[in-house]
């Protein structure tokens, strides 16, 4: 393990051995030590609004049915029949009172309880041979939610979600709590890219530096007015415990004026006033920054942008959208992207329509921003597989001098929790990889096993 110790030490001082972006051995460790103990987003409550609604989501190789039972409780249940291991639900979404295994007909209610076991008496001798009573599909070891976002954890002893999120929850609210109605998620679009999962997560966490170069074309066609290099570096990068993100500096103005500038109608701004704390409002109104991309460790990202969506006479009319996306690891060199459109549930219908349009034009499988990102990430991943990548330490120290002093001091008057810097820097990518290193350094305890049918 000295190799691993050295690798983690390199990463912590801001040097990245390039092979971390395509290494089967590391991927096996990540599966256990990162994804085996982190809170993983599986669904938003708006995706399963009614009793019986379900979606099937994975945490790496494990399939879970996320279902709302008849009493309104949302559960995540391991999608494996207790008998012979068949998937009891083979759809991606739907509404069902029961899930019946197609193999032998074992049947489970949408709260996971085993209710049907054909020939229980004849085949097993009833409860004397197989205790059916109170058997359920294996529940996710831990489940918790924040602002309607449902997360599960494969570690039953994980700290509560709110503790895990830490101060990043303050920033999560900008995306998920624009009104007391919360957000609704639409989607996801799903597609697989031959790129390592960490690259997208790091990019969304803090790479404002790539915007002017990678996304030149979307500025040239007039879709987005912000990414110009001079403008992008005026934004602040913040990190708060479990996550961080990028912002844009807004023109002078009040809280209301600045939200109007990015395209929010007054009625939505009014509700934001009611939903966000004074400190949250001051990030916009006083500091003058608008949240944009962000990542929550390990693999959930957010984006908030305000492109021009209509060919109207007012050439400067923009409309904001929010996307939530998960970088679902498939292997060391492949990631499934799940990309949702998110919008305040209380937003006017016309706003929702145009915001959806803005999302499709910018992000997701067809998004004009995203297209160029993925091309880069696929290229990095394929190049990271060889022996030369093991000899190259990528410099992840932007914003730090050789003596570890920052190039520019942190923002003294930043209202939000955590630390923020104005200008380009890889503060957040370092923070992200430091959490990754903490996970990799620590083996996971052996999980408890469940034996079925025993008395």
């Amino acid at each position, binding site marked *: 393990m000295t190799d691993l110790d050295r690798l983690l030490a390199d990463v912590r001082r801001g040097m990245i051995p390039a092979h971390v972006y395509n290494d089967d051995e590391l991927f096996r460790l990540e599966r256990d030590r990162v994804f085996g103990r982190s809170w993983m987003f599986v669904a938003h409550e708006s995706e399963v609004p009614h009793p019986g609604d379900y979606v099937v989501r994975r945490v790496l190789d494990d399939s879970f049915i996320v279902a709302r039972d008849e009493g309104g409780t949302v559960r995540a249940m391991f999608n494996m029949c207790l008998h012979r291991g068949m998937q009891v639900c083979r759809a991606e*979404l739907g509404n069902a009172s029961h899930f019946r295994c197609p193999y032998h007909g074992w049947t489970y209610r949408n709260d996971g309880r085993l209710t049907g076991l054909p020939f229980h008496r004849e085949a097993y001798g009833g409860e004397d041979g197989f205790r059916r009573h109170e058997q359920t599909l294996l529940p996710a070891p831990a489940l918790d939610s924040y602002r309607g976002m449902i997360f599960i954890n494969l570690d039953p002893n994980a700290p509560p979600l709110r503790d895990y999120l830490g101060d990043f929850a303050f920033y999560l609210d900008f995306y998920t709590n624009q009104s007391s109605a919360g957000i609704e998620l639409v989607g996801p679009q799903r597609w697989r890219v031959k790129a390592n999962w960490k690259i997208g997560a790091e990019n969304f966490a803090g790479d404002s530096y790539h915007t002017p170069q990678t996304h*030149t074309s979307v500025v040239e066609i007039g879709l987005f007015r912000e990414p110009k290099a001079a403008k992008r570096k005026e934004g602040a990068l913040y990190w708060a415990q479990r996550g961080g993100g990028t912002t844009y500096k807004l023109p002078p103005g009040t809280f209301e004026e600045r939200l109007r500038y990015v395209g929010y109608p007054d009625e939505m701004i009014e509700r934001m006033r009611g939903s966000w704390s004074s400190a949250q409002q001051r990030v916009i109104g006083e500091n003058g920054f608008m949240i944009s991309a962000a990542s929550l460790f390990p693999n959930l990202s957010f984006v908030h942008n305000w492109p021009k969506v209509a060919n109207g006479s007012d050439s400067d009319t923009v409309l904001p959208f929010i996307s939530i996306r998960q970088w679902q690891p498939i292997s060391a060199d492949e990631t499934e992207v799940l990309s949702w459109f998110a919008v305040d549930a209380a937003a006017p219908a016309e706003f929702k329509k145009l915001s959806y349009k803005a999302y499709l034009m910018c992000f997701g499988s067809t998004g004009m921003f995203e*297209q160029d990102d993925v091309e880069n990430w696929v290229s990095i991943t394929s190049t990271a597989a060889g022996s030369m990548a093991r000899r190259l330490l990528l410099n992840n120290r932007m914003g730090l001098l050789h003596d570890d002093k920052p190039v520019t001091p942190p923002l003294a008057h930043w209202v939000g929790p955590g630390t923020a810097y104005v200008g380009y820097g890889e503060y957040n990518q370092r923070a992200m990889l430091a959490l990754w290193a903490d996970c990799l350094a620590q083996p996971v305890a052996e999980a408890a096993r469940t034996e079925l049918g025993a008395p």
Partner: protein
Amino acid sequence: MTGQLTGSRRRPGTALAFSEERHQQAHEFLVDEAYLLDTQDYETWLALLTDDIRYLMPVRVTTARSAGFDTAPGMAHFDEDKYSLGLRVARFATEHAWTEDPPSRLRHYVTNVRCFATSNADELVVESAVLLFRSRGDVRESALVSAGREDLLRRDPRGTAESAGHWMLARRTIAVDESVLRMQNLAIFL
């Protein structure tokens, strides 16, 4: 909340015979269009779309047969009008659309063409199947997208569209055959 069921729209009558001129023109339209899309001649392609074009590619989902829908409620890969398609085309024309520079090698295979007359003599419903092969770089794995398409072709009232019979594309609904796409992005058109 449920989505739509693809391919369920009731066809207006039986398909036109392959010997009919309108069928032949529609087929020719699709083959010529495939050539434009293969060569990424998007400016010419855009000129074949009506100003009220609706270009839709819903997200397909796996659902129980009894569910009655097989697209994601409210979500598409493409949900475009002339403005947004025009922007996409304009972006490819810049020197900074990295995802297609170097360009992909594309081949749209178009088959299973059936035409249906509508109550409007100047509109045709045309179904087709499309298989897109896309190769990028020298050694990367190639990618495929398979889809069914339902188009509405409308005759250009000005009679100037550069296509057989002056047909233009007024509506396209793409029923992609995968739930999870195996392609890095859709910086292509189907």
